[in-house]
């Protein structure tokens, strides 16, 4: 065996056919390393089906937080040839490969010469010794635990924790499989305490949660009490969590018959003064566009979460993209104000969703929280979520006492504070009776096509955003503030930008990083950066540079802005992005 190597940043891939238990095995490794204080980033590479098809779980465990997958795999566990072929190009020189040889040995020429390969027919052994193929991941876990250099007892505890809801008989059978796997590792020369020497992690009480989990928590924390949705990948977990948790908060979640019902149910609820949200992905958001326009015209505050996936149309449901931006910024007929926020990790999903709930009521209009599949579904450790930072701001909501003090109440009053935001009474409030309509209307809410009124109302609605500008989340900056090259992006590319910047600095190209968090309205941060630098690289996960075009529409001069695009359904790895930037810089030199 190789001399024990000290590791601080581990990248693991476990792959096979859906149903092989790859994701369970990744979960076990995450549990073990998470308890040792490692920061985790967990991702999935799966198809859109319940069972079968190539399915892989990816885990990065590191002693410092990393907001993305790393460049190279340290450990590949492959239950079949396809997983081996997919993972092999990513292996680093001295990687470990644990391969299920039930269908023959791993072809060594596809693997780096320095790789250590441990092979066993896990599938066949599971059937032969334990009568069921599905124990093979517990068998393989024995070998993986030895590669990680962990005590056998820790591995067994982790397995028992993960199976604690199963009948004792099944738990024991899996533990037996694990022991058989440990024995096999020993026979292959990999004893307890061999393998890697794991560096100490950072102590801390961390949460491991996905962006969708965090969106649901942020909504609840901000007083969100009504949710309507329709199942769609990759947004479904938001519906699932809120169906499970809203009742304990006195709220209600509804699984609707379609997205048209979802957005309109949220509208009906919001009119009664409840803080309401819906969530979907591109195809569902497209169906909701008429309702989004209604939010704009009738001035109703609802949060709309879009977990973007590869489009157009049904596209690639399980793959990330940032290609709904044109729809979010420009979608629906007519002119009306809206806000688009873009969180990059679960902590920000919590924070920005809670903020969106406040903004929706303050704006009295649609506020999008734009995730992408990676931000939505990748699970990441965060150092807790700050419940104390969440405030409930209800904007110009009128209570019955406020209404009683008014001589008269006009829902769409033009005589407000000049900010275009009219005080609003929720349906049911005594003294606040009014009419709400998406047709153009006068101050009372009566339908009107009077040209003077029309102009005043359109201008009133558009003016509303100005008052909210100071509270919109600014871009986060990192890297070298004096660098002449700016690396900008948002969402799933947030962590990648930071790590690529380190790689670029190491390669002699210092860059500043600008991670946008408000996509609409355009806050001018990129325009400023473009003015003060030689070049801005805007990284987007779409084929046409949708956000670059939004910026151009907002007046950002195209000179000096260069799009770096990817739309193959895969996230950038930091080194890939750094290499792409270096190549472009060299081509210009």
């Amino acid at each position: 065996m190789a001399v024990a190597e000290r590791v601080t940043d581990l990248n693991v891939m476990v792959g096979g056919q859906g149903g092989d238990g790859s994701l369970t095995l990744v979960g076990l490794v995450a549990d073990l390393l998470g308890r040792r204080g490692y920061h985790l980033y967990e991702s999935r590479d799966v198809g859109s089906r319940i069972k079968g098809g190539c399915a892989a779980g990816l885990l990065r465990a590191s002693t410092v937080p990393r907001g993305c997958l790393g460049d190279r795999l340290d450990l590949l566990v492959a239950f079949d040839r396809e997983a081996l072929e997919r993972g092999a190009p990513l292996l680093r020189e001295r990687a470990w490969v644990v391969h299920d040889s039930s269908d023959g040995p791993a072809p060594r020429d596809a693997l780096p010469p320095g790789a250590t390969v441990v092979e066993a027919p896990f599938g066949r052994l599971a059937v032969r010794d334990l009568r069921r193929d599905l124990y093979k991941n517990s068998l393989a876990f024995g070998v993986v635990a030895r590669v990680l250099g962990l005590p056998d007892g820790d591995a067994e505890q982790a397995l028992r924790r993960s199976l604690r809801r199963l009948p004792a008989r099944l738990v024991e059978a899996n533990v037996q499989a694990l022991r058989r796997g440990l024995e096999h590792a020993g026979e292959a020369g990999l004893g307890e305490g061999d393998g890697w020497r794991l560096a100490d992690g950072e102590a801390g009480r961390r949460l491991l949660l996905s962006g969708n989990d965090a969106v649901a928590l942020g909504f609840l924390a901000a007083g969100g009490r009504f949710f309507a949705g329709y199942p769609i990948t990759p947004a479904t977990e938001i519906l699932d969590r809120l169906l499970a948790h809203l009742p304990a908060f006195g709220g209600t979640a509804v699984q609707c018959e379609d997205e048209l019902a979802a957005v309109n149910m949220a509208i009906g609820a919001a009119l009664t003064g409840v803080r309401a949200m819906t969530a979907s992905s591109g195809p569902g958001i497209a169906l909701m566009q008429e309702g989004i326009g209604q939010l704009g015209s009738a001035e109703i505050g609802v949060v709309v979460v879009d977990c973007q996936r590869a489009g157009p149309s049904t596209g690639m449901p399980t793959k990330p993209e940032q290609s709904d931006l044109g729809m979010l910024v420009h979608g629906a007929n007519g002119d009306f104000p809206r806000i688009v926020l873009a969180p990059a990790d679960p902590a920000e999903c919590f924070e920005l969703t809670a903020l969106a709930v406040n903004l929706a009521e303050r704006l009295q209009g649609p506020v999008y929280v734009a995730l992408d599949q990676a931000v939505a579904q990748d699970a990441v450790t965060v150092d807790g979520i700050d419940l104390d930072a969440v405030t409930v701001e209800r904007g110009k909501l009128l209570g019955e006492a406020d209404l009683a003090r008014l001589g008269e109440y006009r829902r769409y009053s033009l005589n407000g504070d000049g900010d275009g935001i009219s005080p609003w009474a929720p349906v049911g409030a005594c003294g606040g009776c009014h009419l709400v309509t998406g047709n153009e209307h006068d101050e009372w809410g009566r339908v009107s096509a009077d040209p003077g009124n029309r102009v005043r109302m359109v201008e009133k609605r558009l003016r509303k955003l100005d008052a909210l500008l100071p509270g919109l989340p600014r871009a986060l900056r990192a890297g070298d503030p004096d660098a002449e090259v700016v690396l900008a992006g948002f969402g799933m590319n947030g962590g990648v930008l930071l790590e690529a910047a380190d790689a670029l600095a190491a390669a002699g190209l210092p860059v500043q990083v600008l991670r946008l968090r408000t996509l609409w309205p355009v806050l001018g941060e990129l325009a400023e950066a473009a003015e003060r630098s030689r070049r801005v690289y805007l990284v987007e996960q779409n084929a046409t540079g949708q956000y670059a075009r939004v910026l151009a529409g907002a007046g950002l001069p195209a000179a000096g802005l260069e799009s770096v695009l990817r739309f193959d359904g895969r996230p950038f790895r930091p080194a890939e992005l750094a290499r792409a930037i270096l190549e472009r810089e060299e081509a210009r030199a």
Partner: protein
Amino acid sequence: MNVTRTYEPAAPVWCAGCGHFGVLNALRAVLRDLELPLHEVFVVAGIGCSGSIQNYLGAYGYHALHGRLLPAAAGAALANPELTVIGAGGDGDGYAIGAGHLVHAFRRNVPFTYLLMNNETYGLTKGQRSPGRFVDRDPGEGWVDGALLGLGIPSSTFVARGYSGWPEQLARLLRAAIEHARSGRGFAFLEVVSPCVTYDDTYSRWRHVLHDVDADPGWDATDRAAAFRGAVRLAAEDRLPAGLIFRAPDARPRERPAPASAPLEGEAVRRRLRELAGRYLVDGS
């Protein structure tokens, strides 16, 4: 009760003789008889000629998107069970563009009233046939019978049909529908045959088409199967049942959460949030 001045109810924009006047009169009478404070009444209207009825009452009114009044009304009723939510829309809204929601309104049985004002035509776009047209229908196109549809969904609880030419029965049915919904028993569907005098004046025909089941001692409105059979039999004779067609005898008031008055913050909320967040702790402690 405060005396804040709010909008003046407008005068109806409908054509003289429009069936919708009968619906409006019945609605005004029932709201008055039930002594409901107007601020607790929420009329969710659709798009079309019927979609202005909310403007004439002085209550809270919402003009929903075409075909979407049902989910909007359901959202309001689910959020605040104290409200008397009355959906009111046309046959284009309920039987064409929004028919999918009608199926699920029956299924979900959220307590609110749905007045489907069936004038058998698209009035605002000048007289196209609607899928709710029964008299003078195109045999090749067929028609949708909301009452039969409702009876066919096992969790439906209230199905009725009125006629704007029969005001007494209409007011009685509307009151029963609103009471059914207000008591929390469920979704109350009341189709009102409300002829369009401009594009499809069928007033002279309806008294012969409609069979008053309230006056029929053989009609058992507590028996879903019998009501279904009766409606199918009438259809075979080119007739439709009018009156209380079916009211589920086992429909009981349900306890419902009130999200609109749920606490947004406070110690109890924080405790629950901390407990929820704790489920994601890496070390499971």
